[in-house]
């Protein structure tokens, strides 16, 4: 047997190239998740309620520091599966900021208590890690891993208010629909592998160009299925049907998290997959995605009209905003990538401001997330009313807010890329959106607050099987009254902090947007597009 042993003895295993420095933000996040889970097992209630969230913030802070440490790096890590470049670092920043806001909003939430703080925060950090993988994936397998790692904790997080029917329903619905989406995406990726013989984005791109596979039916079917699967995740019409129900039913901090960071990750992978791997097939998928974007803009904005639940309205509005951002993906130019990244940053600020106000009002009043909960806010709580007003105006694209500059940039990218009609569609969407953003502002400043919903007046509802019990408060518009065993006394500083900071950032970057422009300009240049 010696002749067999010799090759084995001389052969040495060559492991995959793992750049631990580049991987460090991910390690920080996953390490933080594990640590949060373990600390959450400790007996003391105080440790569970205070130390675990603080630990998550620390993990996010570490990830932020490591991301900044890696700035200006352009390299492949984990042997070509993930890529660190300006785009993935910029998206990482947005994800970490979104995660930090969510931790602050969820600090005293019912969901974190019911789900046990350790598990809640571990799931949150794992999901962020998955999003980070997704934003830097350079390989279809890594893409799928990232997608699943981001989705599965979210399915559970949606259902964390376990005693509320809508929350459980939301989690289950998201699980089923999300799994269908993931399966569709996987099938599409498999077909692309079958057509091109490669899983690496660069190899797929060269395969498409060299073997002129851009019009091959197998490739096209694969691309179509990939578009469908990613559109599920990004809530692009007509695959958005799950969004209103899931967003409305989930606990509000989790909704805020989903609305912002899932979009960031999904659009990031859209940018990377379609502008790197499938760039040669642009003639095929470009017009199709443009039509999808237009339908999304219309469906999202029209669907939000007349909603009485603010979370449902924001869900439809986020569908519309996903449509706007797809315009930047469609044109496949540097300007498009930069515009989409810019809008994602601005989108984070705008949405976090409004969700923070909704969380604050849910905990203060018994009116859930209905529009009545914010009525008269201008007089009662100006510190909440102004961020909400700024957020609504920014989402509608009014000047002096960062939302205006973001829309300007996107329309500029669309017109420069030859899709002028898409620019007009964005503008039409903005027009329709005024119809549902303005009534919220009107309710805050031009109406009286509903009487008698101070915490002292309320009787805590019985914690029991779902369904209205006598003496319990009605569950309005499917909202989640975050009524606690310990009623909140007035405003919670961490929630107000998120609202005020996000609102201030929206105005600040609306007047001085140059720092963001510098950030995204670098991100826009990573693909070497025109």
């Amino acid at each position, binding site marked *: 047997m010696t002749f067999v042993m010799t090759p084995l003895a001389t052969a040495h295993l060559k492991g995959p190239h793992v750049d631990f420095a580049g991987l460090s933000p991910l390690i920080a996040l996953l390490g933080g998740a594990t640590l949060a889970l373990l600390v959450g097992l400790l007996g003391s209630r105080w440790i569970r309620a205070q130390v675990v969230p603080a630990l998550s913030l620390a993990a996010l802070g570490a990830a932020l520091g490591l991301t900044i440490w890696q700035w200006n790096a352009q390299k492949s890590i984990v042997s070509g599966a993930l890529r660190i470049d300006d785009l993935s670092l910029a998206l990482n920043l947005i994800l970490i900021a979104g995660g930090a806001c969510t931790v602050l909003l969820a600090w005293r939430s019912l969901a974190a208590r019911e789900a046990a703080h350790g598990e809640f925060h571990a799931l949150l950090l794992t999901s962020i890690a998955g999003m980070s993988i997704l934003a830097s994936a350079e390989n279809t397998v890594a893409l799928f891993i990232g997608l699943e790692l981001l989705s599965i904790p979210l399915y559970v997080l949606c259902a964390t208010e376990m005693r509320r029917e809508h929350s459980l329903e939301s989690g289950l619905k998201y699980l089923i629909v999300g799994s269908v989406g993931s399966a569709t995406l996987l099938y599409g990726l498999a077909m692309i592998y079958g057509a091109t013989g490669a899983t690496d984005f660069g190899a797929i791109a060269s395969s498409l160009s060299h073997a002129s596979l851009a019009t091959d039916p197998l490739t096209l079917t694969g691309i179509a299925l990939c578009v469908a699967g990613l559109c599920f995740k990004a809530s692009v019409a007509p695959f958005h049907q799950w969004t209103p129900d899931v967003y409305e039913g989930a606990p509000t901090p989790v909704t805020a998290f989903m609305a912002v960071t899932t979009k960031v990750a999904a659009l990031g992978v859209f940018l990377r997959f379609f502008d790197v791997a499938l760039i040669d097939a642009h003639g095929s998928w470009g017009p199709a995605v443009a039509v999808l974007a237009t339908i999304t803009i219309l469906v999202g904005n029209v669907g939000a009209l007349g909603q009485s639940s603010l979370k449902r309205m924001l869900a439809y509005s986020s569908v519309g905003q996903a449509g706007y951002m797809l315009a930047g993906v469609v044109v496949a130019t540097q300007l498009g990538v930069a515009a989409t990244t810019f809008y994602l940053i601005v989108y984070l600020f705008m949405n976090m401001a409004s969700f923070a106000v909704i969380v604050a009002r849910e905990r203060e009043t018994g009116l859930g997330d209905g529009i009545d909960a914010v009525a008269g806010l201008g007089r009662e709580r100006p510190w909440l009313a102004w961020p909400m007003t700024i957020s609504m105006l920014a989402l509608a694209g009014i*000047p002096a807010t960062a939302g205006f500059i973001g829309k300007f940039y996107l329309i500029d990218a669309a*017109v420069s890329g030859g899709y002028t009609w898409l620019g007009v569609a964005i503008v039409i969407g903005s027009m329709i959106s005024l119809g549902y953003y303005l009534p919220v502002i009107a309710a805050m400043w031009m109406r009286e607050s509903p009487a008698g919903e101070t915490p002292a007046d309320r009787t805590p509802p019985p914690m029991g099987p779902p369904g209205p019990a006598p003496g319990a408060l009605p569950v309005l518009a499917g909202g989640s009254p975050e009524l606690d065993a310990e009623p909140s006394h007035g405003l919670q500083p961490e929630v107000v902090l998120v609202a005020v900071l996000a609102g201030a950032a929206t105005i600040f970057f609306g007047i001085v947007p140059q720092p963001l422009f510098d950030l995204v300009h670098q991100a826009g240049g990573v693909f070497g597009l025109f």
Partner: protein
Amino acid sequence: MPALSILIWLPAACGLLGALLPARLSKDGRERVPGALALFGSLVALALAIGYIADYKAAGPHLQHVTDVVWIAELGIHYKLAITGLNVFLIGLTTLLFAVATLATNLRSGSPPPERPRLFYFHFMLAESAVLGAFAAQDLALFVAFFDLMLIPFYFLTGGWGREPARVKATIKLVIYTLVGSLLMLAAAIATGVLAAQRGGGHITFVLSSLQALPLSTGSQEWIFLFFAAAFLVKMPAFPLHGWMPDGYRAMPIEVLMVFSGILSKVGAYGFLAIVLPLFPRAAAHFQTLMLLIGLASIIYGSLQAFSQRDARLIAGYSSVAQLGFITLGIFALNSQGAQGALLQMVNHGLVVAPLLFIVGLLAQRAGGSEDIRDMGGIAFRAPVLASMFLIVALATLAMPGSSNFVGEFLILLGVFKAKLVIAIIAFSGVVMASVYALRLFIGAMHDRVGKGVHSREISLRDGAVLTPVIAVILFLALYPQLALHRSEASVKSAVVRAEVNARVGSLAAVGSATPISLASARPPDVANPPTNCRRAGTHVVCSYESRLK
């Protein structure tokens, strides 16, 4: 003169300061500080504007007191402000009307001062800054930003301090109508910048002077023109797009309505003159007839409605529609007389409609709170000074010879006469109709039988203090309209010249086939001498200039 930015932002700064200072109640339990700060800010702005008018050199460079800072390098947007012959008087009008309106809210005698004064004056002053910025902006994206922004404070003012019933609904209607047009304009403006850069081959830019040197293709110009026209016509409002006006006018508080009607409509007209005509001359010539017809329809519809309205506010509102119809006619006559007349009328109309609305408020106070003219009548009985002031304003509204409005309308009609004879003849009827509705309002309110519930009293000193400055300016301009005409002459001519050439060439082309001149490729026109002599030479059209070769 200090930097233009101080004029633009001082009102907003005073409003913000008033909103942030801790509350200090005066003797009668009201907060007076925000109102006083706002008044201070608007008066200083007025002083600065008067300084700019005095300092403006008619024979000087086109843009004076320029501020040019790159705002967003990536998108080619500059924070560029300047005083031109087109905007110097409109800026003066804006500061005057806002100062007068702020004075009116501070000195309110017949009704309580506005509630929550800090927020009220914050929004009011923010509106003034936004309007001043829109007039002074020399960058297309900056103009669009100010144009969209200036509506939002009015949204809050009408919705929060407006009159019942249905103020919230009226506000939403007003804002949606206007913002629909404005958002179309946003798309068109971005397309202008991108397409101009693509044709010119350089980096994208939105600076107006750069865009004028990069004309677009005729097809692009046409759809962009229509989008801009939509935004400006809604603002003015012109006949088909005026649906927001009745509810909006009914809902606003009087002082807010004074500035809204006096100034915001002018931003639309100014936009045509300063942006659409210089940047899209071929489209302007192409759509000249359509726009003249819209102006004519506004005149006829507005006047007819003004005859039959009972609500005094709406008489003023529909008369504004008619007057802005005249202004549209003047602009789209596409010659310098018409445009000069239009610019003068913009100033005149603002000067006239603001006191008119204020007087409507005074009449309502004397007629038991009703603004219906059937409830008024005989108010002149014990109020001779009020009656005299109202008479001056009413005669100015109907463009009585001797007033500056007469000069403006004369120039407009002269300009339209030269362009399209038939439309001018029909427009003359608008002059007659103006006298009918203006006198109907005056006679119905002040003379005739004394209405039930009318308690006439003389105008108080406070209200007199509000009206006197504006009436003084009306009288001054009536005596010396040349002030406004002379200083704006050069700017108006340069704004109109390209469209004028295209219109003349277009009318010649109707005779034979000819190629319109592309002015960008030709020698720059001598702006003081527009081409006077165009003739066909084979397949080309040749125009001669009376220029002085240097």
